[in-house]
């Protein structure tokens, strides 16, 4: 069974009094469990809107989103919150870490919402930070971390609940080449070892090259959907993760 199924998905925004913008315009897609794919396209092509619809942050004007076979249409905000909490991990361009929490506490946050006990939370956060190579930074606040480290914390936070699907919106948008490479490396490693599905919105061709499927959007529609052999990663900073 497919992990994610989109059927005739549309999102219409009113612009001014008469105009309307079809940010997403009738998209049909299927994503299998364990896929590692990129969504690319020019600005305003509907990439982020699509991601928000899939992740239940936004509700479609028309069409359906099925996550693990469950249609999210007509679900209440409370039920959507539950799906986000249990099934989905988010990674954002701006990292969105809470400044008052240290790395470990940031990673524990989704577990807290799942009502996981303190010890178990700490154990799983330590595991997740280990996976992204930040064990030593667990007690540091975001302000004491570099951009690349912050994004790795954010990835650990997205993964710590073991979600069915990780949605990343321009995760490398604010990072330099070396850090971009390392973020992709981390995500690929997690995709390999945990078999979690990753959908990465990016406008960086390098990032897209490292994935095995590239969906190109234009004007809210799928322009192309191509499978490819993912390029090999060689992050040239000499540091292994």
């Amino acid at each position, binding site marked *: 069974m497919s992990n994610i199924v989109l059927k005739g998905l549309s999102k219409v925004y009113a612009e001014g009094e008469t105009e309307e913008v079809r940010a997403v315009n009738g998209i049909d897609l299927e994503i299998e469990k364990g896929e590692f794919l990129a969504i690319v396209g020019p600005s305003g092509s509907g990439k982020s809107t699509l991601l928000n619809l899939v992740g239940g942050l936004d509700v479609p004007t028309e069409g359906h989103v099925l996550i693990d076979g469950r249609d999210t249409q007509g679900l209440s905000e*409370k039920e959507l*919150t539950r799906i986000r909490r249990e099934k989905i991990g988010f990674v*954002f361009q701006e990292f*969105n870490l*809470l400044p008052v929490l240290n790395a470990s506490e940031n990673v524990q946050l989704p577990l807290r919402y799942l009502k996981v006990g303190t010890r178990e939370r700490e154990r799983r956060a330590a595991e997740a930070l280990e996976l992204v190579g930040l064990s030593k930074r667990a007690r540091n606040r975001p302000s004491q971390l570099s951009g690349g480290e912050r994004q790795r914390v954010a990835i650990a*936070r*997205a993964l710590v609940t073991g979600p069915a699907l990780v949605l990343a919106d321009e995760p490398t948008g604010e990072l330099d080449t070396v850090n971009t490479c390392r973020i992709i490396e981390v995500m690929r490693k997690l995709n390999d070892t945990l078999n979690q599905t990753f959908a990465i919105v990016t406008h960086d061709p390098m990032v897209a090259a490292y994935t095995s499927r590239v969906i190109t959007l234009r004007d809210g529609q799928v322009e192309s959907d191509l499978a490819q052999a993912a390029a090999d990663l060689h992050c040239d900073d000499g540091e292994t993760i």
Partner: protein
Amino acid sequence: MVKVILRNMWRRKARTFLTVFGIVVGIFALTVLGGLSARLTQQVNGAKSWFTNSISVVPSGGSLFGGENMFFTLDKVDEIQRVPGVKEAVAGIGLFVKDSQNFSFGAPDLIVGLETAGAQDLLKQLNVDEGRSLQSGDKGVVLLGSTLAEKLNGKVGGTVSLRGQEFEVIGILQPTLSAPDTFAFVAYEDALSLFYAANPFIKQTEPIASNVYVTWELGTDPEALAKDIESQVSGVRVISPSEAEKQISQFSLIFNAILFGIAFIALIVGGLSIINTMVMSVSERTREIGLKRAIGAETNTILGEYLLESAMIGFLGGLIGMGLGVLAIFFLNNATSSSNVTVFTVSLTVVIGPVIFATILGTLAGIFPALRAARLKPVESLRED
């Protein structure tokens, strides 16, 4: 959770400090005024127990405490004595220890002249600490309330001067923290001569009384008896025990209303500043709220977080304000102790009440900002800069 909330508050140290300080000021006022009010209530309750032991009869137009230089002739006392149910009608003279009795806290310093023979029932209700009580036939002696004794530096066996006349102190009462503490009990005849001295234009041939203390026969309802006296004796005002209680309470009610009015205004201002601070915090943290919602926080979780933060501001302000208030009470009481005046009482209510009140105030002030935070849409808040 609390740790995280304190860290969040610490992000805007100056603003949090000012907001907490706003509550501190209000709660400080509430605590100090609460102490004042507790002391007042104590005094009033004491006054009640003295004044409700008898029915007071005063010239019509007079009041419970007397001191207006109004009086009636002693045939009124006989008239009252004849009303069925009256056990003893005791002629009394009440006058202030000092003419220029300014605003006094609680009961005023009062010379209470009683017909010693008839007043034994009344006097029995006073607990003598040192010496003895007034006895039938006593003259030129005084039984002092504890506060007044200290004020006049009266010792048993020594003398004190009341309105220019020397009295031998025969006894000092136990402190009651209430009305009799500031009373000087003397014989009727002694008080009468003081009364004449104070009112030189009164014809001094006829004995008079400024108030009559009426005790009742066992089984008689004092309220009904008060009505009987009122209807059977002309030109008098009868203050029954329940009316006395009402008069005394009224005094404290008005006082309390003013006190708490002041504290309340301070707290409304404090509450508004909490609302302001919390609304600002919510808009500053819009993105964070969006993030929390995105990774699965329920609206109620967000609501709870902000309510708790707001309650925390109230609680801290309450704790500090109460602490400072109790400290101030301690120092003020110390400062006035040399003149034997206790102005404040610290009770459990005075200590715990303001803190609970401030916490509730903080929580209520947080409702609007917290609802605003909880209602934010995740997508839109994440877009916020």
